[in-house]
């Protein structure tokens, strides 16, 4: 407890405090604006670490709960209801960790309308943390929808050439998914007279008959956000057009909101429907893994390549989720963190290259390692982490997922995992090809000979990520200890339903 307020409330409030402070700083004072935003996000990260310190490892339930009635309609209350468990804690930490890094990466990349950028960035952080912390469905929806507003500005104002198209497409796709979720939320509220997550869990029987529809209503919103094949078409546009910091947050955190939504709501609230649809979802996930990998391989633009690799990597997360085994679920959560770290770092690297050369075509590079050895070395680690080299973080997540999916009774066939494994190989193909084209070989372009290597600030944005990449890769147990109790509880819940069905 800090200042008598729950840490979770502070997590959401601190970025807003930064927001208010920023309002009073004149827009010419770019330095002050950047520092205030950075400090606000660092303070938020500090609180997130405080939350981690208070978190009881081994307790699968909700912790540090804050609960206040907010809107009372008749006999139903919408509550301001926050809490963390093993599923959300790492997401909260990831959000608080990546935001200051993303802000630091904008130091020289964003020169225009700095004030607006920082204002929206802090709003976005507050909204994302709210999504992972909210346990009341309406509150969740409020945060979920609200994150769209800063994001459309970040893409649309500070993005690339086709930024407006990408921003509007992003907004409309996401909103299309979420309005049906709102319908599902309204229905649940009317049936059970509550919007609280745990109360709904108790009253599952009340809406059991409509499970399939509810699963689809929620699932569409989450599947678009993840994004799952074939709903992914907004992603390459949004990722490519977004400014570097926007891409980092988009890939690192916003996509996880969809995967997290499946874990938090679809699985526990609609377990029969989950079991029924698991092979379909896993099938789409496998298609996404292969399709994303194949399309990534075909790209000439590094940023597009990384964007499509997200489709592939998130496919693993969904596969692990719908394996419905404790291992698969734990792997999915860990892989969400891993993808946030690796892909976030990849986008940072692409941003650094772009700042120097103002192009992202692989053909414009080549032999960069010779010119920028520091960037080359760091990029190698990140690339290897992304393709799942043992000893780095990506391997742990993907391996756990594949193991979980292989043994899954819900999927009923080891082939899902078997085919998905091909995706691991493909990832090595397209990522190493990219690395080779950009960093290895002779320096093909004269203008590349004089590129300055990373400065201290840029190194500082990558190093924390690399530390975690090695840490998770070599000693993942502390992370799994955080996840496992909740993952096991969730798997047990779904499996008990499966037993009852037989």
């Amino acid at each position, binding site marked *: 407890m800090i200042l008598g307020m729950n840490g979770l409330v502070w997590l959401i409030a601190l970025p807003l405090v930064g927001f208010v402070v920023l309002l009073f700083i004149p827009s010419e004072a770019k330095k002050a604006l950047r520092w205030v935003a950075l400090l606000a996000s660092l303070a938020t990260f500090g609180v997130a670490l405080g939350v981690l310190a208070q978190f009881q490892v081994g307790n699968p339930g909700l912790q540090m709960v804050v609960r206040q009635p907010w809107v009372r309609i008749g006999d139903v209350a919408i509550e301001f209801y926050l809490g963390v468990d093993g599923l959300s804690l790492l997401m909260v930490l990831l959000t608080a960790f990546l935001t200051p890094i993303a802000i630091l990466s904008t130091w020289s990349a964003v020169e225009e309308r700095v004030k607006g950028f920082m204002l929206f960035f802090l709003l976005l952080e507050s909204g994302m943390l709210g999504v992972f912390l909210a346990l009341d469905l309406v509150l969740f*929806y409020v945060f979920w*929808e609200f994150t769209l507003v800063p994001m459309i500005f970040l893409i649309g*104002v500070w993005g690339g050439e086709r930024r407006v198209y990408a921003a509007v497409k992003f907004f409309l796709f996401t909103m299309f998914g979420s309005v049906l979720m709102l319908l599902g939320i309204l229905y649940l509220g009317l049936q059970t007279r509550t919007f609280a997550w745990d109360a709904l869990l108790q009253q599952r029987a009340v809406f059991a008959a409509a499970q399939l529809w509810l699963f689809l209503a929620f699932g569409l919103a989450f599947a678009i956000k993840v994004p799952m094949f074939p709903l992914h078409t907004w992603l390459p546009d949004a990722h490519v057009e977004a400014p570097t910091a926007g891409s980092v947050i988009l890939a690192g955190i916003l996509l996880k909101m969809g995967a997290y939504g499946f874990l938090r709501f679809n699985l526990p609230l609609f377990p029969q429907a989950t079991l029924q649809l698991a092979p379909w979802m896993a099938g789409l996930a496998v298609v996404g893994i292969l399709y994303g990998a194949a399309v990534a391989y075909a790209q000439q633009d590094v940023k597009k390549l990384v964007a499509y690799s997200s489709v592939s990597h998130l496919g693993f997360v969904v596969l692990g989720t719908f394996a419905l085994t404790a291992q698969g679920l734990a792997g999915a959560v860990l892989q969400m963190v891993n993808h946030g770290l690796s892909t976030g770092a990849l986008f940072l690297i692409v941003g650094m290259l772009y700042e120097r050369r103002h192009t992202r075509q692989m053909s414009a590079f080549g032999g960069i390692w010779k010119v920028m050895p520091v960037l080359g070395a760091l990029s190698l680690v990140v690339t290897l982490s992304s393709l799942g080299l043992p000893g780095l973080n990506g391997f742990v997540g993907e391996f756990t997922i594949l193991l979980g999916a292989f043994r899954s009774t819900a999927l009923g066939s080891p082939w899902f995992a078997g085919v998905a494994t091909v995706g691991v190989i493909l990832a090595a193909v397209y990522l190493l090809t990219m690395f080779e084209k950009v960093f290895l070989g002779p320096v093909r372009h004269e203008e590349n000979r004089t590129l300055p290597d990373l400065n201290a600030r840029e190194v500082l944005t990558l190093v924390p990520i690399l530390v975690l990449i090695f840490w998770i890769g070599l000693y993942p147990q502390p992370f799994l200890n955080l996840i496992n109790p909740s993952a096991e509880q969730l798997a047990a819940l779904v499996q008990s339903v499966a037993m009852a069905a037989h």
Partner: protein
Amino acid sequence: MTLSDVMMVLPIAFILVWAVVLLLLDLWLPRERRGWLALLTALGLAVALGLDLAQSGRSGSAFREMVVLDNFAVFLNALYLVSGLVALALGYDYLKRMEIERGEFYAMMLFSIAGMMLLTQANHLILVFLALEFLSIPLYVLAGFARPRLESEEAALKYFLLGAFSSAFVLYGIALIFGATANASVTGVVEAVRSGNAEMGFLTAGAVMLLVGFGFKVAAVPFHEWAPDVYQGAPTPVTGFMAVATKAAGFAVLMRLFLNLFPGLAANLTPIFWGVAALTMIVGNLLALAQSNIKRLLAYSSIANAGYLLMAFVPYGNAQVASQAVSSMLFYLLAYGLTTLGAWAVVVALEQAEGRGLALEDYAGLGPKYPWLGVTMLIFMLSLTGVPLTLGFWGKFFLFRTAVAAGYVDLAIIGLLTSVISAYYYLRVVVIMYMRPGEPKVRRDGWLNLVAIGTAAAVVLLSVVPVQVLNLAAQAVLRLP
């Protein structure tokens, strides 16, 4: 006529007297002192608002049940009066710079508001018709107030012709109802229906006629054709006033009459309401997509919003959700009213003489160049889209909740999907404001800023405490016989 009768309609009576006084005063005031009239009108509206709010909690009828007073009327009357005040603020500078400031503007405004209030309190079908005309005729004049601009005259003529047409429908409906029940007072008709002395076929036909007539007033599809042209041609402060107050008045009389007179006809009327609501949501939103003029865009947006409101009214015959329907509609009217008035204030700020400054392109660069005005417009567009942390989100939330509670999931799905469509055209305004470079010309006007910032602040801040607003709407119950 006793004193207590007069007390029931005191705000209306006050406004009428005040309007006549202002008309006379206009003759004596020198030209350069015209501004006084606006201030005096505002004073009159403020006093009437005070009188109106003082009546909250009271309930009763007067003039032999010709008019009733209930919290429903108090709530809506306050909405009309506030819209009137805002319209005055929007017009204060606008009328001068467009060189159309004439004293009649203020009197017409007051007459129209008095008509709306009377319509809301009317408990007799003849009085309903009189009040409807009383609110409409000054509006025809106001729509044409930018004479000799052709669009304004066209707007007035169109509004007048179609308005007269719709009044005829209402009158015909009243005649049919009278024929069916031998009664024109609401209480009498209800009694006749209850005792089984009503010819149900004619009664249903009458109800449908009323629906058509009021459908014109609230601009529901397929009776919406006049709205875009009239909204575009009328002086912008008048448009803002019509978009909020007239629409609210149309819904007020719709709610009062249908809940009172025809709960038994719900089985026959519900499919009609269903169709009109669905059509209005779909057509309003689809046509808004194609607009490149901000006034027309907001006109189609107001049509679409009528659809959302009607959606909640479809289950009016279902006693379990009827009160919820009314309160969620009143909430929505308030949310929509605040948002729309603010948006019209921004439109007025950008409008130039001869109808320039109204194209969407004229908003390019507004966000960075005029941060305050840009942010307020952003808030209004988000609120109209229904994005959380605005009042518009809760408005939609409660409306859709009513529809789902009544079992109209199909309508709710249509409503939700069309609101995704609406996101596209509201976003276009945002995109142009913030993501296109430009040099917008903005009129600096303290009153406009006050309205824009005040309504934007209300739209955001009230969304944090929506329940207090909802309770206000929930207390605004209709007095049922």
